[in-house]
């Protein structure tokens, strides 16, 4: 008998924890030895989409209920496992990135994260191989991250010359377009996991680029729907003037028109950023923020647009009128938030810290999701060539599970991933998820977020 354990918080047992690490280590070796259980499973698994794999698998598919009780069957399977590995379909994915200088977090106490994105891709590589092992697929991740002054285009050419066609692009718009426009990249499949620039989904869309990360239009619409639902239609914008900020502002104005909100004033914040360390600086900030907001017309919320993250958080609790802050700070519209736990999301919240020793950020999720879209499409379509994978991702068959409580898919008109958007950030529990109740769409409710087909300027 197991003694009654007190009903108190406690950690998972060391036994299981150790097992997990062991399993991960084994799985990380994509083409190396597999865990015993998985090896035995080798090629016995077959799905409806793995028709091509049938011939390869045929020899190993001998485990039937009638003979499975026969203990001799197990060693027989094991002997075939080696052959099975060689017959695996392999998808090679290149994680193309550049060490851009990124804005520092406004809080001096906050850790500067230098491995955003890649950790999510590494996690998905483990998961993809864990699944692939069962059905004859292997996945490889080539980490191609160039330094800040490195030549990402040359690195992309190198990968393309080696015959690789699947890319996770952790790139800013100019670099992304340069890679996508390479003649040899014409038949590539490039997952944009980093840039929210709307032009990449509109005038500058590319047939070989898929957008995992939501654009500014989706983010503005997600927040706007919530504010309209709350009956807070008057928005006072306080912003900087970077290209990202201008893009976001245009989308906030577009969202106001779409959903019946109003930007009552567009106020440019022009105090220079300065050092992050506050010491007694909070006293000045307290006065400055009051000044920034005291001449504003009547408004329901302050909409901060500050992509460089150098003042937005200062607004909270310091506005002249007691008003909530939303936008790039305060309540944010995001693909992932550290407070999100619904629809199995705790698994991702737990898995990234195990790997990266820090909580997940949005780009970890989009990188995870980008590789997941590719690996899922490969396994379900049964093929690893770019044409089949791309066609499958754009078909009605593609229904991706990713902790959002509904299937994710791609918009055919601009290759943007349709997805519910989390409203959170800075809160210990998420505030909401958009689309909000009551915002209707004839086909897909998530298409109320961002550019719908009739509005799209994208021409492939």
């Amino acid at each position: 008998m197991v003694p009654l354990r007190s009903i108190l918080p406690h950690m998972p047992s060391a036994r299981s924890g150790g097992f997990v690490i062991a399993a991960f280590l084994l799985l990380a070796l994509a083409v190396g030895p597999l865990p015993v259980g998985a090896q035995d499973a080798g090629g016995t698994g077959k799905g409806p989409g793995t028709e091509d794999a049938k011939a390869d698998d045929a020899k190993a598919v001998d485990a039937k209920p009638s003979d499975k009780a026969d203990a001799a069957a197990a060693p027989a399977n094991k002997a075939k496992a080696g052959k099975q590995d060689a017959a695996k379909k392999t998808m090679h994915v290149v994680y193309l990135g550049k060490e851009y200088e990124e804005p520092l977090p406004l809080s001096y106490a906050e850790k500067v994260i230098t491995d955003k994105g890649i950790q999510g891709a590494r996690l998905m590589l483990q998961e993809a191989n864990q699944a692939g092992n069962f059905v004859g697929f292997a996945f490889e991740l080539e980490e191609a991250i160039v330094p800040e002054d490195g030549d990402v285009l040359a690195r992309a050419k190198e990968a393309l010359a080696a015959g690789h066609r699947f890319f996770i692009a952790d790139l800013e718009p100019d670099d992304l377009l340069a890679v996508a426009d390479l003649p040899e990249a014409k038949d590539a499949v490039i997952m944009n996991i980093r840039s929210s620039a709307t032009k990449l989904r509109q005038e500058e869309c590319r047939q070989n680029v898929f957008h995992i990360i939501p654009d500014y239009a989706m983010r503005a619409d997600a927040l706007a729907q919530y504010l309209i639902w709350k009956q807070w239609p008057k928005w006072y914008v306080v912003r900087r003037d970077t290209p990202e900020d201008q893009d976001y502002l245009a989308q906030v104005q577009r969202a106001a028109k779409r959903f019946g909100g109003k930007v009552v004033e567009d106020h440019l914040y022009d105090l220079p950023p300065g050092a992050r360390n506050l010491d007694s600086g909070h006293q000045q900030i307290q006065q400055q923020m009051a000044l920034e907001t005291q001449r504003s017309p009547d408004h329901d919320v302050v909409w901060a647009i500050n992509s460089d993250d150098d003042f937005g958080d200062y607004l909270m609790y310091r506005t002249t009128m007691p008003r909530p802050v939303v936008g790039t700070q305060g309540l944010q519209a995001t693909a992932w938030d550290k407070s999100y736990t619904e629809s199995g999301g705790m698994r991702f919240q737990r898995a990234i810290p195990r790997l990266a020793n820090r909580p997940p950020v949005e780009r970890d999720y989009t990188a995870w999701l980008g590789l997941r879209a590719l690996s899922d499409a490969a396994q379900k379509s049964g093929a690893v060539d770019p044409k089949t994978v791309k066609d499958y991702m754009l078909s009605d068959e593609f229904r991706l599970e990713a902790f959002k409580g509904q299937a994710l898919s791609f918009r055919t008109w601009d290759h943007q991933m349709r997805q519910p958007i989390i409203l959170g950030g800075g809160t210990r529990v998420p505030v909401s998820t958009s689309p909000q109740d009551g915002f209707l769409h004839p086909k897909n409710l998530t298409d109320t977020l961002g550019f719908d087909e009739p509005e799209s300027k994208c021409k492939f």
Partner: protein
Amino acid sequence: MTRIGLATFCATALVLAAAPLAHAETIFVSNEKDNTITVIDGDTMETIDTIETSRRPRGIMLSPDNKELFVAAGDGDIIDVIDTKTLKITRQLESGPDPELMDIDPEGKIIYIANEDDSMVTIMELASGEVLSEVPVGVEPEGMAVSPDNTLTAATSESTSMAHIIDNETHQLVANVLVDSRPREAKWTKDGKELWVSSEIGGTVSVIDPTTWEITDKIHFEVPGLRPEQLQPVGMDFVKDESLIMVPLGPSNRVAVIDTAKKEVVDYILVGQRPWHGEPSVDGTKYYVANGLTNDMTIIDLDTLKAVKSVPVGRLPWGVAVMPGKPGA
């Protein structure tokens, strides 16, 4: 609260012990948010007790002899075992992290537990709680189903979208079947000739032939006026001598009724919000389904296929188990 519940239960139990009813049964509902089990008298449909459990009770099932109730408490990383006579937790099983669903072999000797957070199926001796094996499966295992002849166990992995088939003797995987996204539950027909798997995000139910491990039928759902993404099959329960299978469809607030011979949906029954799991009554005339968002349980009459009544339970009800007889009897 509990004390009052217990007093009520004792009084009820005494009365009922004196005059046992023909179809007396007790319904247990796990309440994910409240960390409790609501105990309902099947005759009066009144709550007779509320049992406090470890955190986040979800999967709930009875031992084959109905003497023990097993409750998977995901946030407690434990399985609470409740004595169905006393309604007290008598012991706990060290299930490994985040247990969600489980199944017990027909002899009541072995329990198979899905550990959602570490991609393992834990195989445990029921009496001793001793772990016999941990079988690595796909990511986020959930549904567990022991075959009626006790030779195989199916485990679904939600993130990997597969049904993994474990040999109960060797504890090795014998097959892995790719199904649609987020498979939640697996159920065998009594003759062991079909394995049914629900795919929540894929929005389908697959029927697998265990001789070939091929999907032979795939059932889709369609309700006029509802968007496809709302039709999310989760639980599945055979009723009416397996002529029908009941499939709660989550956000569509409906339970689908599938003709198991034709593999076609014959009806959609409107219930409370977000039904996930249910269980038929002991005599097979009713189906009880837990409605997650409305904190109640709907009773469906299986002869007319109509929802006849809803009874309040705890917050975020998740699973249902039904026991013949009364506690203490």
